């Protein structure tokens, strides 16, 4: 599994489009912050972080998901791996770990970049603001990983890049959770507390010192473990298409 991870990391780190994409994203964000800087107040560094991070599961997570999950389908790498005798469970777990690691890297660096931009413009975040910014980043990191795990079921079950990318984007832009929330509000309002947005919200609040961390963490792990198990099951059921 380590060799597989090392190979995938090597491939990703030599993917020129990844550097161009994240570079363009960083430059665009820096320019938007600069343009808006005239209207900043003491609260802007936190409220803007909340607004900006909201887009990251789609903008950053979407790219990582495509690079890790759907590139394999396009290049027939998945077929090659199975052909070489690599276990399907190992493939699913490796992809998931890499997605979690790369997302963690992105969501650890983004608050630093955000804070650095505001500091350069004369609005350096206070200690409390840093805690809130990192708690928000943690929330969206958890959402990104969970969305990848959920969309992974489609990657392995259908082995169609378009379907899996569309599902990931719908999840990342909260279209799916929005629709489910509307339905749940009518039929079972209490169940909306068990949606990923609500679970990750509770983890964020706990990280900021309000509420318990245990229940939402257990729910989150259960969510991701179920999605992983379903991915393995779907992958085992699906014939490899040549």
């Amino acid at each position, binding site marked *: 599994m380590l060799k597989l991870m090392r190979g995938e990391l090597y491939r990703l780190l030599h993917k020129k489009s990844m550097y161009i994409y994240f570079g363009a994203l960083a*430059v665009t964000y820096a*320019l938007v912050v*600069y*343009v*808006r*800087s*005239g*209207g900043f107040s003491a609260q802007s560094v936190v409220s803007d972080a909340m607004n900006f991070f909201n887009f990251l599961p789609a903008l950053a997570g979407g790219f990582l998901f495509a690079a890790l999950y759907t590139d394999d389908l396009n290049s027939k790498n998945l077929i090659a791996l199975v052909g070489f005798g690599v276990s399907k469970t190992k493939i699913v777990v490796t992809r998931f770990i890499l997605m979690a690691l790369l997302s963690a890297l992105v969501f650890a660096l983004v608050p630093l970049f955000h804070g650095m931009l505001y500091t350069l413009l004369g609005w350096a975040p206070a200690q409390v603001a840093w805690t809130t910014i990192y708690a928000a980043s943690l929330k969206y990191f958890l959402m990104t990983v969970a969305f990848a795990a959920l969309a992974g079921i489609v990657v392995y079950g259908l082995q169609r890049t378009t379907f899996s990318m569309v599902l990931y984007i719908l999840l990342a832009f909260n279209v799916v959770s929005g629709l489910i929330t509307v339905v749940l509000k009518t039929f079972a309002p209490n169940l909306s507390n068990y949606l990923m947005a609500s679970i990750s919200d509770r983890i964020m609040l706990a990280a900021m010192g309000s509420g318990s961390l245990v229940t939402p963490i257990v729910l989150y792990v259960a969510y991701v473990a179920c999605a992983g198990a379903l991915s393995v099951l779907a992958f085992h059921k699906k014939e490899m298409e040549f």
Partner: protein
Amino acid sequence: MKKRPVLWIVLALVAVVVVAGAIWGKQYYDARYVGADYYAMVPQDYDTTSHDIKSMNGEVVGTGVDYKLTAYNARGEARPVAFTVADPGTSISRGEEQPQPGAYLWVSASKQIVVRWKSTEQNAIPEKALEMIRKNH
């Protein structure tokens, strides 16, 4: 290899356009959306009769009151401010109460528009601004 200089020229042009766009965008954003604090009072004899509010096409979209006031900043500098508050209960109402004659207002005004406004207390108004309001009403 021959394509390289052309690529760099295109990239440099794109960079110049992006930076120029950002500078222009900042100037526009600051002029339009960055407000400074001003204070005003609705004069006692101000006409608060509702009238039709029209869209840019001339279509009537609702009714409300136009406020055209003179506002003052903390240094006592005056500027005209204008905004419209729709009648409560109409489809274009934002739930704001229409300030009545004698009401004090805090107005966040950019170079071009009134960004925000709200009713305020007399004691929340800086001394110089209050002095100018009293002098001119």
